[in-house]
């Protein structure tokens, strides 16, 4: 009996499926899933975001490696079987991709293990790696296993103050800024919890936060999302608050990174949500250039978000820093300043409107 594609479904003996899953390459976004619950292929034909599937690599394209749950880049070969999850992708520098409406061949649109159908790609991107869904993973009752089943329990934010790092766009330096701040605060002796609230499942940002000194780090995959593109705002706000709560548990301060630029739909929606914003004590903006910083600062101001500090790629240019500082009227901090054990907490204390610097 062939393993299959499209709308044709087959069942696999539980032990045989488990054996296949053990041999398959497992991706990062499946890291919380208990694949022991997968005893058959589910009889569903229309996947939704987060559904777990076994797929075969048909043709290697842009992504040649699959990130493992532990962060290892696993080289893929045509014919390999992989365990991934369906999800939307919104990445102006890479792919615009959506969850397909069938199990027809589709694309691997992120190395963390996201299956989707590409609608458009950046000019510098190769065609996506082509994959063939073998089947959606199902439990004993035939229900599709979705990453949301394995999420951390929903929690409410506690007392730890929250600094949110946002950016003017992809690659504006958000992750570096967040890691720099985490470094400085942890060097100062503070217990830092970190979280990446939105984005596409990949361990890179989490490892970066942990390496910088975060005692705990969580991302949206811990809240039950393979990616957050296209998800409902209400769900996203609940997940964001819960991630902040988990990151704050046992820690003094939370550094939360929000992916992409301010104009990205989910980022935009989340920041405009009063329910989310009331848990934000300060915003740090990572900007690629001075003009972007000015526009983003204005947007944050218009939406009454407490922008306190500018950083990001623009700090590579002293002139750009000066331009941004003079127009926006807020401090622009270099990576070196963010990593400093005295300056980082000072910047955060100022973010809480609590600290006067006196001569």
């Amino acid at each position, binding site marked *: 009996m062939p393993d299959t594609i499209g709308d044709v479904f087959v069942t696999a003996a539980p032990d045989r499926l488990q054996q296949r899953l053990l041999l398959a390459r497992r991706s990062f976004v499946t890291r919380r899933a208990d694949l022991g619950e997968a005893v058959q292929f589910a009889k569903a034909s229309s996947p939704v975001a987060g559904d777990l599937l076994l797929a075969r690599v048909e043709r290697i394209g842009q992504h040649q490696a699959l990130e493992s749950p532990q962060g290892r880049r696993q080289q893929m070969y045509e014919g390999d079987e992989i365990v991934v999850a369906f999800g939307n992708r919104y990445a102006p520098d890479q792919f615009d991709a959506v969850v397909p409406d069938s199990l027809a061949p589709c694309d691997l649109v992120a190395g963390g293990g996201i299956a989707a159908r590409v609608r458009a790609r950046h000019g510098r991107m190769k065609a996506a790696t082509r994959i063939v869904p073998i089947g959606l993973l199902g439990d004993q009752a035939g229900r599709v296993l979705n990453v949301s089943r394995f999420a951390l329990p929903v929690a409410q934010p506690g007392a730890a*103050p929250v600094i949110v790092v946002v950016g003017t766009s992809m690659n504006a330096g958000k992750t570096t800024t967040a890691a720099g701040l985490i470094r400085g605060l942890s*060097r100062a*002796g503070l217990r830092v919890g970190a979280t990446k609230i939105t984005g596409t499942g990949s361990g890179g940002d989490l490892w970066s936060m942990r390496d910088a000194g975060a005692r705990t780090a969580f991302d949206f995959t811990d809240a039950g999302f393979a990616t957050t593109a296209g998800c409902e705002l209400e769900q996203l706000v609940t997940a964001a608050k819960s991630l902040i709560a988990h990151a704050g548990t046992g820690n003094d301060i939370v550094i939360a990174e929000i992916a992409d630029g301010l104009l990205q739909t989910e980022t935009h929606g989340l920041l405009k949500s009063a329910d989310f914003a009331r848990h934000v004590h300060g915003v740090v903006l990572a900007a690629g250039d001075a003009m972007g910083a000015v526009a983003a600062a204005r947007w944050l*101001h218009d939406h009454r978000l407490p922008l306190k500090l500018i950083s990001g790629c623009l700090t590579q240019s002293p002139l750009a820093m000066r331009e941004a500082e003079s127009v*926006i009227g807020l401090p622009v901090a270099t990576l070196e300043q963010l990593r400093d*054990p005295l300056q980082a907490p000072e910047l955060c*204390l100022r973010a*809480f409107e609590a600290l*006067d610097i006196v*001569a």
Partner: protein
Amino acid sequence: MRHERDWPVSEALRPERLFHHAATAASYFGFVPAGAGPATPVVVSVHGISRNSAEHLFRLSALARSGRFALVVPVFDKATYGQYQQVVDPRKAVRADESLLAMLKDFSGRTGINTARVVLTGFSGGGQFAHRFAMMHADRVAACLPCSAGWYSFPDAGLAFPAGIGTLPLHPQWDAVPIHVVVGGDDTRRDPSLNTTPAIDAQQGRHRLTRARRWTRALQQYRSDRAGAGGVHLTVAADVGHDFADLAATEAFASALGDALTTLQG
């Protein structure tokens, strides 16, 4: 651009007044609780060699708010003050004690709070600094709480400072300063920051817990026949290693600090 919305501030960081005085000669964080006046007690908390001043500020501000005391948290930067733990850096001869005196003057000038006598505490390297400063400036120290110090200046004039007191100009009121040593019961690891020279191991013990015990005992004996001598106490905080966050969160530390403040207020 100004933000007009009144955003919530974490209770843990809601200061009545918090400031950082950034001058090299006297860099410090100052915290003033609500309702403070000239007689509000002042606690000085000195960082360890990791220069974790912000952590001291962060962890003690809640106690300061509830206990209604002001906080002065020095920043002895490494480039300027080197081995501030010994009060006077042995290589550069830079005086961290004079810097602290300048901080107290500046703090008093800005806030109107009397800093003539303060409660002095410090963790690890800060604990070393605290007891040595108290020996030299006892008139400014109402009570001293050296916490988890790596090693101590023993009251032995036959031993050169800083292992002993040698020719150190002890302040005449030093014997009267109440001392309360606080150390973690699990602070027994010989980490890289601990002074592990054979001479110190032999004189003071192999880890901070033993060293705290020996110094407390030595000081108790030294003061036993001196009139008007201040008390010398040791509190061992159970299940705490060499970690300021853990120690500062203990009832043992809060209680020792509370007793010290009583001394000041009395």
